[in-house]
C-alpha cells in the first residue's frame, strides 16, 4: 500500500515563504486575487503565527491528507475522496459547493475559489500532476532550507520515512481523531 505524506521541519524552516509563493505560482498561475477564506493569497499553504506568549511560533498549515478525513466522510456526493495513494483529492465534477468539507476540516485547510466555486486545498492540479510523474510537490522542490519532505510512509527507504525515523515530530490536533499525515518535525 502507498501512503503519501508531507513533512515540514519547523526547526529548519527559515520562513522565507518560497513554498507559499511556489504553490501560488504553480497551482494558481501566480494569481493575485485574494483568497477570501483565509484573507491570504491563492495558495494551499496557510501561515499561522503565534506572536504573543512565551514562545512565539510560526506554523505552516495545509491539507493533512488525513487517514480518517472528515471532509471525505461529510461530502454528500463523494467529490472529496481518498485516493489509493493515500492523498485526499477532489473530483470537481461531483462538487456542488455545499462547503461541508470546509466546516468539517479542523485544520481549515480548504479555501473557496470564488471563480470556480471549488473548495481548494493541497494538492493543486500542478502538484498532483508532478506527483503522478514521480516528481516532488512544488513546495518541497523549492524549499531552500530542506525543511520539507514528501513520500510514501509505507516505504522505509523514502526520504520522509528516513527523516521521521531520526526526528522528533508532532501531528496537529491529534485529539480530533483524524490521523493526519502532515508531520511537523520539532527537532532531531
Amino acid at each position, binding site marked *: 500500500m502507498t501512503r503519501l505524506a508531507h513533512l515540514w521541519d519547523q526547526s529548519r524552516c527559515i520562513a522565507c515563504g518560497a513554498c507559499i509563493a511556489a504553490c501560488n505560482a504553480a497551482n494558481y498561475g501566480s494569481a493575485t486575487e485574494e483568497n477570501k*477564506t483565509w484573507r491570504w493569497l491563492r495558495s494551499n499553504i496557510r501561515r*499561522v503565527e*503565534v506572536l504573543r506568549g512565551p514562545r512565539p*511560533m510560526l*506554523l505552516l*498549515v495545509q491539507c493533512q491528507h488525513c487517514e480518517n478525513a*472528515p471532509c471525505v*466522510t*461529510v*461530502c*454528500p*456526493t*463523494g*467529490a472529496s*475522496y481518498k485516493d489509493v495513494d493515500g492523498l485526499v483529492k477532489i473530483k470537481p*465534477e*461531483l*462538487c*456542488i*459547493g*455545499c*462547503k*461541508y468539507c*470546509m*466546516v*468539517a*476540516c*479542523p*485544520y*481549515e485547510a480548504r479555501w*473557496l475559489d*470564488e471563480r*470556480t*466555486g*471549488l*473548495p481548494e486545498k493541497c494538492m493543486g492540479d500542478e502538484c498532483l500532476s508532478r506527483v503522478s510523474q514521480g516528481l516532488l510537490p512544488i513546495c518541497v522542490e523549492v524549499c531552500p532550507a530542506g525543511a520539507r519532505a514528501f513520500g510514501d510512509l509505507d516505504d522505509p527507504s523514502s526520504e520522509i520515512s528516513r527523516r521521521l525515523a531520526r526526528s522528533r515530530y508532532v501531528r*496537529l*490536533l491529534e485529539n*480530533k481523531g*483524524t490521523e493526519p499525515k502532515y508531520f511537523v518535525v520539532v527537532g532531531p
Partner: protein
Amino acid sequence: MTAFQEIWAPWLIGPFLWFAGIAGMGSVAYVLLKWIGVEEKRKELSWTLLISMALALVFVIADLSRPWNVASAIMSAVFGGTFGWTRSWMAVGIVLLLTGLLLTLLLALRNSGVKVLAPLTDAKWFDALLALVGIAITVYSGFLIAAAPGVPFWNTPLLPVLWIISASLCAVALVKLMIHHEAMSKAATRYGVALDAAELLAIFALINLALYGGSVAAKQSAHTLAYGELAPIFWIGLVGIGVVIPLLLGLIMLKKENKYLGIAAAVLALIGALLLRVLVLQAGIFEPII
C-alpha cells in the same frame, strides 16, 4: 474581533434551518390535527408547509458555491455509487428535503381541489410518512451542524434536541396563528409553555456545557454569546424576545386565552427560533491549531 466561521453564511443557512424546522414539525402538527379531526385551515396549513419546504431549499441553494452543478453532481453520485446515503448528513438531507417537498406538494394540491390525489394523500400511511419525514428533516438539520468536526461549539448532541424543541415551538406557533378552534388553541398554549421552558433549559445547557466543559473554541463561542459581541442579540433577541416573553405570555394565557397575546407569543417564538439558528451558526469558531 472574534474570528467567526464565515464559510456557512448565518443569514442563509440559519433561515434554511428555520424553514426546514417549520416545514418539518409543521408536517407533524398537520398530521396530528388531521387525526383529531380539526378541519380548519387545512389548505392554508398545507400551503405553508410547501412554501416553507421550498424556501428552505432556496436558502440552502443560495449558499452553495456551485449551484449549477447540483443536478448533474447528484445524479452522477447516485448512479456512480458515491452518494453518501449512510455517510453524510448532507446527503441524507438532500433525500429528506426532496421527499418532504414532494409530499407537501401533493398535500397542497389535494387541499386545493385536486381530488384525484385524495386516495393517496388521505391514506393513513401517507400521514405517517409525512410525520416521519417531518421529524427526520428537523433532526437531520441538527445533526448536519453537530457533525461538522471543524467547529467544536456545534459538536454537541444537544443541537438536534434543541432543534426539535425549537421547531416544535414553530409548529405550535403555526397552530396558534392559523387555527381558532378553542380546544386546540388551549392545547397549543399548554404545549407552547412546556416547550418554551424546555428550550430555555436546553439553551442554558448548550452555553453552560461549552463554557465549562468544552474545548478552547467551544468556550470562546459560548463566551461570545453569553458575554461577548453577540451577547446583546443573544440575551435580548433570543432569550428575552424569543423565549422568555412567549413563555410569560403563555403562562398568562393558561389562565385566560387571549387571541392577541396568542398571536404575539407565536410571532415572537418564530423570531426566537430563527435567531437561535442564526446565532449558533454565527458563533461557530474553529479550534486554534496551536
